[in-house]
């Protein structure tokens, strides 16, 4: 569990540090003091997330993930945030969220003889998902194809419908 906790801490540190750096950089660039406060708030959220996970208090990790992703999107929209940094923040925040849940499951299960094997399997899958996500995200950020608005809208609608169908399918399978 110690190793998993370290990986979790690393994920969280990367996400929070990058977010704070971006906010600080934009604060200096645009001379906006409020962004310094936002950076302090991000640090506070990150610290609280880590300390609550270490103490075994769970339940807030989803709120923290949402907050991080929204801050990431806001940075993208309002300020100059490089896509690589935004992606890295999203991926590491997602990883931290996943590992918080995994730590919770491990803790609930008590002392396990095969904890290391479970941990290794989990990390292998997570890192693979993160790497694929990162690559796909980078490709999306670098490849620029100009599409007319209606085609863009169509693609987005298709994606929305696809995800909806997927959820319905999974729900049916579960039933």
């Amino acid at each position, binding site marked *: 569990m110690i190793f998993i906790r370290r990986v979790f801490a690393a994920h969280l540190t990367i996400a929070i540090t990058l977010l704070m750096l971006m906010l600080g950089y934009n604060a200096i660039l645009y001379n906006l003091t409020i962004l310094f406060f936002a950076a302090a708030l991000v640090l506070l959220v990150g610290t609280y997330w880590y300390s609550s996970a270490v103490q075994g208090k769970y339940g807030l990790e*989803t709120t923290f*993930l*949402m907050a991080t*992703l929204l801050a*990431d*999107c806001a940075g*993208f*929209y309002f300020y100059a*945030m490089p*896509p690589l940094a*935004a*992606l890295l923040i*999203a*991926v590491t925040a*997602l990883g931290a969220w*996943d590992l918080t*849940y*995994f730590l919770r*499951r*491990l803790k*609930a*299960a*008590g*002392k*396990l003889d*095969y904890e290391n*094997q*479970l941990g290794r*399997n*989990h990390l292998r*899958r*997570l890192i*693979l*998902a*993160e790497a*694929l*996500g*990162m690559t*796909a*995200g980078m490709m*999306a*950020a670098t490849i620029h194809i100009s599409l007319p608005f209606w085609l863009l*809208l169509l693609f*987005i609608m298709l*994606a*929305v419908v696809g*995800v909806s169908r*997927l*959820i319905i399918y*999974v*729900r049916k*399978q*579960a039933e």
Partner: protein
Amino acid sequence: MSGRFVLLGSVIYLLFFLAMLTINPGPLIVAIPLVVYLGFALLNRPPHINVTAQRTISADYMTQNQPVKVHVEVVNNGDDLEELTIQDHLPEGIKIVTGSARTLASLLHGESLHLEYTAQAPRGSYEWKEVIVSAEDHLGILRQEEKLEIHSKITYLPDIPTLKKVAIRPSRTHGHSGPIPSRKQGAGVDFFGLREYQIGDPRRWINWKASERHDQQLFVNQFEQERIADVGIILDARQQSDVLSRDSKTGKILSLFEYSVRATGALCNAFLDDGNRVGLVVYGFGMERVFPGYGKVQKDRIRKALGAARTGHNFALESLRYLPTRFFPAGSQVVMVSPLLNADLPAFTRLRASGYEVLVITPDPVDFEARGRKLYGELPWQLAKVERALMLHKLTRMGVRVVDWDVAQPFEPLVRSALSRAPVAQHVVLV
């Protein structure tokens, strides 16, 4: 499907709409790792669960608060399960001492997993009903759950104190010799009366003092036969007569019923040790009966019945009106263990009129509750005490032997001082 799946789906939706709303690719790019993560979970979704489980408990009966070992074996008969959570659903009141009732493991086809833990509980009957098995993908997004119905039961028996002797004097006794004065002349130890000397009487029976007072006449002592008797014990398990109170030192919730159970067990053992025939009725939600019997086997039966006894409410059995008096042989000793309610008095009148000798052991609910609520010595406590004293006085007037027990004091010395001598024989009018 777990809540995490729905949540991730919602976040992806939100990011899509944010992208559309702002006409900015940023949220879409942020959403891509999430979509990949979700897709990865879907590709590795858990297969259908096909497992069997078996639970073994080291004992069917155990003294209260003693640990028992519980062993659960789960065998996977289906496809490989990457992450399987197994949780043995514990009955309410059971506490785990060592080990865990939950585990997380990978279980391949044909493999088995063993879950072991030690549990303990206070007196009562506990039933395990199910083992919950849930399989998840490695990322914990998709979940399949199955509840396996496996019933196991354990009864925690009460810890019963030992009583030396409880002296009773029922109006009828059995033919076998025992410790109870039978009100009949015969071979015994206690003085019963005098009669004129007859040829064949042993010389040591001659009462010389009485013989001196009469000329040419000799008198011999008669002794009282000592026999065994029928004893019927009634444990009051009505919810309305039970009192719950918080212990001021430990903060634990205590039940007056637990004291009644221990007292009942101690009395049963004492009567059975004397060779009497003892029966038990637990009067509460229903009427649990242990038919009259003798010896160690009966002791064991009663202990098991007391282990499973619990308070409950039944509108039909709200008062003691429906006490099954015919359950106990006529003229036998009836022992009632109850905190008593004011409405219970007519039942005792009926018992006395039916010819039973009645002994009431009554754990004091007033002191018990007052101690928990810190009302000891206050006006409400005084009023309740007066009311209770009046009720107990009425019972005594009916010819009922009453032992008022403050449960803060141990039961054994109280019984030694109040019940070690047989009461004076009473004349009972049989109706």
